[in-house]
Structures are given as structure tokens and as C-alpha cells.
């Protein structure tokens, strides 16, 4: 949380996964940097969980995570560690995307 003022803390467009601690969280954090080169990625490590976030939109590609993990990876396996996320989710086979979009 960058905002210290609780009354304005909701005025953010942060998006991204909250992962249980472990090797996958590390790999995803690294992949987030690679797959979103124009964005600043924030990593908030709470030991039990790691919040990986950026403004507006974050895309994570299966192949990038695989590369960072150094072993085969199926996108669906992310769910094993995906405890929460901010923003909306779009989970496909080759990527997962978190994004902010105001509907109405």
C-alpha cells in the first residue's frame, strides 16, 4: 500500500497476483518484469504471501514463467499458489492477465 491515508486508499488501479510463498512466486515476480517491460512492478513480500502488482494491467506468459522456473509449466498450475489477486482476471492457456477496468 503506497497510500497511508485510509480514506483514499481505494483510489488505486493496482493489479496483479498474490501468491503463496515459494519458487513459483519468485518466478512469477521475475516474469512480471520481463512480460511488462514498460511498467514498474512492485513486490511486497509478506513471507506467507507475496503481492506482485503494477498499475493498470499485468500480463504473465506461460513461456516466461517456464523460463524463470527452469522447468515445464502449465498456466493452470498457477492456481495452486494463487491465493488472491487484485483487478480482474483473464486466464487463458498461454497467458494470464490482470487488469483494471471500470465497467459503468
Amino acid at each position: 500500500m503506497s497510500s497511508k491515508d485510509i480514506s483514499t486508499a481505494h483510489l488505486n488501479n493496482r493489479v496483479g497476483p498474490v501468491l503463496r510463498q515459494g519458487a513459483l512466486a519468485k518466478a512469477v515476480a521475475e516474469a512480471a518484469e520481463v512480460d511488462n517491460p514498460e511498467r514498474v512492478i512492485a513486490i511486497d513480500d509478506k513471507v506467507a504471501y507475496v503481492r506482485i502488482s503494477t498499475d493498470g494491467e499485468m500480463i504473465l506468459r506461460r513461456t516466461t514463467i517456464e523460463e524463470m522456473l527452469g522447468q515445464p509449466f502449465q498456466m493452470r498450475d498457477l492456481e495452486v499458489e494463487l491465493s488472491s489477486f487484485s483487478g480482474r482476471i483473464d486466464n487463458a492457456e498461454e497467458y494470464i492477465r490482470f487488469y483494471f477496468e471500470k465497467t459503468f
Partner: protein
Amino acid sequence: MTVLNRLDWYDIARNTNWTPKYVSDQELFPEELTCAFGLAAEAFEEYDEPYKTTYPEYVKIQREKDAGAYSVKAALERSKIYETASPGWLAVLKSHFGAIARGEYSASSAECRMVRFGRAPGMRNMATFGMMDEIRHSQIQLFFPHQYVSKDRQFDWAFKAYDTNEWAMLAARHFFDDMMVTRGAVGVGLMLTFAFETGFTNMQFLGLAADAAEAGDWSFSSLISSIQTDESRHAQIGGPLVQILVKNGKKAEAQRLIDISIWRAWKLFSILTGPAMDYYTPLEHRKQSFKEFMQEWIVGQFERSLLELGLDKPWYWDNFLKEIDEQHHGMHLGVWFWRPTVWWNPAAGVSPAERQWLEEKYPGWNETWGHCWDVITENALEGNMAKTLPETLPVVCNMCQLPINYTPGPKWTMRDFPLTYAGRDYHFCSEGCRWVFEQEPGRYKDHQSLVDRFLDGQIQPPDLGGALKYMSLAPGEMGDDALKFAWVEEVRAERLKKAS
């Protein structure tokens, strides 16, 4: 590999709506069980669940999750967590399992409501996974504490609590029953999955996991954070419903149900999660304060998503933000003071160092809560233990069923929020709880709180002993100060040091 991709056939599996012919649409989807606000089936055709999963993916992933959680438990079985954990941490475990495990099972029935009476096939399919998830959560959260039953009778309450009229359980049931199992499918989607699961469960299952990791209880940390991975999937059932309702002119109805759920969830979490984080968890293991976790999960993450989907902040939001600072301190003091009436041993959490931490996190704590704890501490120092215990019942709220309490001290802000409805007087803890009642009095009006039952003569003998019996609490189960007042000695030592 020559198998199809998931998305090639996913849409076919959720294209299963048909027009009934041999029974009427109304018989098939009665409004009370469906809660469609009169919208026709077509309005729900647009339903598009954002977090897509297929059957084979589900069983594979869930098998993996369970393999992980159970193996952590097995590996840590010999780590003697029970023997080495601080008494305060055990209070966290006992209150958590008792209030949560079988509530999860009830949530499975609520998911079944959506499987049967949801109007969109995608919703019904995702709720089928939700139904399974909640069976997982109840079973795994019974299996884990079961290993402790032979060590400590209070752990029996991981199972037993829901069968009793213990007051905190009465409150938990009243809340969970109101927003899960007694609602129609859309109501469940909005109140349970959207408001509760994308919001509050993060507090209990991730915030607390952070504290658990700090406290070295990896088994618990791994368990509850794994549970939340299921929640984060099936919680997505609610979002598309919000959008459909807003689009079809039912924004006010959606907003109302969600506002009710958030307010009520807040009240329960102020007693379940607040004390666990700010008082029971040993000081050195507190990752963040309860307020900071609330800010992270509820304000920063959840409130934002309300606005994102086209809803407004709840009308009571400013009050809510104030309460985040204050309410749980009173809930904690109430639990601790009436400690024989709970199934865990609450840690007072007010040693000199802890008070300093509280003052730092909640400026003004010493001038308010501190005053009450000063009197308690004096009594304890003098061995006047009877005065650290109650001789009457707190008056509980006719909505949240929790003691009506608020910030003590010179400002004396506490008050009753009464309402007379159809000739009966009700007492509420807040404008929020009274407002919930007024939205649909028929849901609540003939329910009796613990105090109502006491006055009605259902609790015999009509004293604290009778109340304990009514709550199924016997010696060996009843709570006591977690540290058996060892913290008072720290106060004494500090005073001696200052005096010398």
C-alpha cells in the same frame, strides 16, 4: 498431443440453458430460491465467469493442492507445534477452527443453491466447483485440528462449536446463515462470493497466514493460504452478477445485498480476526496490525473492486473506516472479560511492550481502552481475580449478536441503537446493524438473541452458571487468560524498576 484446448469446448459445456415445457419457469426457478429480482432468464445469458476452469483441470489442480497441504501437515506432525506454540497462538487456532470449519460446510450447501437455482449455466458450473471447494475446506479444517483433540479439550470445539448456543457461535451462525444458506442463488452470489469471499476471507486466510508464518506455524499458514486459492477462484462467481444487475436497472438491489453482507462480515471479523491479529498473536510475530491488513485487503483491494464493477461505496463507509480503528479492541476486551464463555484462552495482549505497540498502531489506545485495562491490571496485580470476571451478561445486538460495545474512556462514545418494530423492542450496536434489520425485518424479527432467551427464562438457573450450561461450556473447555496472568508480572517488574 492431439487433445483439444480447453477454450475449444469450454463454451459448449456452459451452453445448457433450455426453456422448460413440462413445468413452468416459475416452478423451476422460484423467486425466493433464485433471487433474480424478477429479471427474465435472458438477462442472465450474458453471464461470463472470468476465472475459467474445466472439470479435468479442477480435479488435477485440487489433487495437487491437497497433496501439498497434507504433506506439510505430515512433515510437521512431529514438529510439536502444539507444545511449542505460544498460548496466544493456540487461541488463534481454536477460535479459527471452531468458528470456520463447519461454516465452510454450510457454504457448500449455499454453493449448491447456486448450482440448482442460478440462472446462468456458467454460474451453475463454477458453483459446482465452489460446492466441492467448500467440502474441501470443511474436511481439511476438521482433519488438521483433530490431531490436537487428545492434547486439549478445547480443540473438541473445532467440531462441537456449531452444535452449541455459545454466544460467539450464535453470532457466527446468524451471520453465515443470513448471507449464505437462506438466500436465493443470486443473493448467495452477491453476498457470499462477491462481498465475503473476494473481500473478507482474505483477511482470515491470508492476513492470518502471514502471522502464522511469522509464528512458525507453517502447517496452518500453508493450510489457510491454500484454502484461499480456491476462494479466489469461486469468489469470481459474483462479479458478473453485479454487472448484469447494474445493467438491467437493479443496481440498488445489488448494492443493498452487498452492503448488508459487508457490514455483517465486518462485525464478525472484528471479533474473529481483530483480536487474533492484534492481541493473541505474539507481539514479535505480528506481521501487520489488523488495521493495516484491513487497509491492504478490504480498502485497497476490495473497495476498489466495488467501484470498478459499477457499484458505490456502501453508505456507511466513513463509519466503517472509523470502526476499523476501534471496534475490534472492544470485541477483544469483551471476549477476554467474559472469557469463561468462549472455548479458547484469549491472550490479554496488554503487557507493557504490547501496550506500547497498540498505542503506536492505534494512537489514543492508552487513553481509551487503556483505561479499562488499567483497572483490570490493578485487580490482577492485587490478586483480586473475581473483579476481573463478569457477574452479568453483556447486552448483545439483535443483528450481529455480539456485545454492544464501543470505545471507552473520557469521550464515552458507547450507546444503544434501539428500534421498536411491531411492538417489540430491539437493541442494536450500530446504525449499520439497525439498518440491516430495517431492510427486511421479516428475516430477523422473531429471532431471539442470547439475552432475549435469558429474559425469556430459557436459561436456567438465570445466572452466569446457567448461561454457561446453556452454552455447553464446562470446566476443561471454558476459557481463561492464555498466559495465566504471567503478563501481570511484567507490569510488576516494570513498576519495581521505575520505583528503584
